[in-house]
């Protein structure tokens, strides 16, 4: 048994199987609508985390502000979805890309840790703007997302379908870019920045493009997030969200979309599972952050990185 657990690939498979079992048990206990809601939420988180896989797994830069791109996409979707769905989706993706571009403004001069800190500053700025632009965002009170009228289906199914669509678009983008010249240039930038410079690649521009593409995924994820929850407020998009997305991207494996999707499923299922265990621990106010934090530390220590 211990030998079985020492093999990292088997350990990963075992974890994946346990996860599927856990989500299945959650679905069995909560019903189909509940399961659809969980899956839709996981899809939204995975969509945004795939952007980080782009900016980090490909271009080798760290983004600490993906929550800002999600916020841009979510609020744009909430504002435009009642008018036209395709327009709202395109606008949400564009708003996310714009947020990514704003984060990457210093990317011509900065890289690595300074650039990561600049993106974190942008995430804080985005949260403040979301709190103050009351007419557009509803301020700290938040705003409801008017759900498109599809009377034949319930909300959770609509959200799941939409979330799957956004996830599919992000995966498609990732695969297309991996096979394009741009993807190869990013990999060169990540693995040998000096060689990339010597080859005459526009290193600063490549970093900026990576953030724009990542922001686009973030915008799509934000739209799916808003559609799934039906209500958004600024503190949902505060710094912890950016960090949680980073945790999903890192611990899921930056190179593998499947790993990221599984990790976001685990991330969504974990608080629900912790909630089921609550009768065992009684009224602990900090049970959720405690379980989440210890899981992050545990997985960081025991997961084999690639």
């Amino acid at each position, binding site marked *: 048994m211990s030998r079985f657990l020492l093999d990292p690939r088997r350990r990963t498979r075992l974890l994946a199987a346990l996860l599927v079992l856990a989500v299945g048990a959650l679905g069995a206990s909560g019903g189909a609508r509940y399961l659809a809601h969980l899956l839709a939420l996981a899809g939204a988180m995975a969509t945004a985390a795939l952007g980080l896989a782009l900016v980090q797994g490909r271009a080798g830069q760290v983004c600490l502000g993906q929550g800002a791109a999600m916020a841009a996409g979510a609020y744009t979707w909430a504002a435009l979805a009642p008018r036209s769905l395709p327009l709202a989706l395109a606008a949400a993706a564009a708003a996310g890309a714009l947020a990514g571009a704003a984060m990457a403004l210093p990317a011509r001069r900065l890289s690595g840790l300074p650039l990561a800190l600049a993106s974190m500053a942008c995430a*804080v700025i985005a949260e*403040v703007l979301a709190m103050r632009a009351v007419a557009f965002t509803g301020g700290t009170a938040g705003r409801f997302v008017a759900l498109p009228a599809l009377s034949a289906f319930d909300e959770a199914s609509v959200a799941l379908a939409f979330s799957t669509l956004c996830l599919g678009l992000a995966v498609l983008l990732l695969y297309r870019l991996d096979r394009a010249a741009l993807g190869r240039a990013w990999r060169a930038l990540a693995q040998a920045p000096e060689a990339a410079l010597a080859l005459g690649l526009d290193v600063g521009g490549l970093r900026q493009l990576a953030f724009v593409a990542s922001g686009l995924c973030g915008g799509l994820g934000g739209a799916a997030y808003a559609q799934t929850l039906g209500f958004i407020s600024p503190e949902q998009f505060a710094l912890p969200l950016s960090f949680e997305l980073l945790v999903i991207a890192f611990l899921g494996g930056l190179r593998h979309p499947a790993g990221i999707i599984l990790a976001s499923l685990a991330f969504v299922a974990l608080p629900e599972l912790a909630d089921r265990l609550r009768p065992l621990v009684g009224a602990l106010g900090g049970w959720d952050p405690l379980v989440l*934090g210890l899981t992050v*530390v545990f997985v*960081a220590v025991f997961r084999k*990185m690639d």
Partner: protein
Amino acid sequence: MSLAPEVVLGGAAQGCLYGLTALSLVFLYRATGVLSFMQGEAMAAGAYVAVGLAALGAPLALAALGAIAAGYAFGALAARCALEPVRTRAPWVATLATFGLALALRGVLLSLPAATQGWYRFDWVGEGRWLGLAARQWAVMLAAAGVAAAFALLLRGTDWGRRVRASAEDAVTAERLGIDVARLRRQAWGVGTALAVAAGLASAPVTFVHPELGSLALNAFPAAVLGGMKPGPAVLAAGVALGVLEALAAWQLPPGGKELLLQLVLIAALLALPRERVAAP
């Protein structure tokens, strides 16, 4: 306009706390190569330990020392169990581990009914006013200066400090010279966390002790970068400058203005600093 000196002095008191927190951040970054996101939670948890010890009947000075020792123990233990094992595997994983530890600490704090149901004071100063400021604010400034001076002495004047600085400069050579670099890094995690606890205790007279006490650590990042990412008086001075700037912005700008201003200062400082100063060691 007659309020201006008091606004500036009050901002400076708050800024001392930013500077002190930034000092712990920068020290850990230089000594271990990891950007820590658990300094704020360490501040809050340490303040609660001190409150708890004082409630058990310990004198205030002893309670403060106990909390600082607990901070050292937590930092060193976290380094041994989680942060050092992941450090070499991939960059940023250790940073994410500090985020996980911060969440766990926060979870523990929120789970203590006594911690969430009341507001506590760890007041080692008392009432009084001098030159328009409360004695508490003067005490915060003095405490910050004292802690920073003691830390500078530890880093510059002792053998341990020399070994830490040598290992941060060039780990391979330090190892060859017989310095146990890994052990030193664990100790550095302990000292950095203890320093954050000291900052939390310094802030306790003016802010009360509550689970959100550590939220001021967010403003330690601009102070750290503005101070040049090197442990020294520049970081403390940058913190004071930011505190004053924040106080003036809160006084004159519309709500939300001070947060925006500090983050814009962070971006500007990142762009203005010479590159090798902020690059990974």
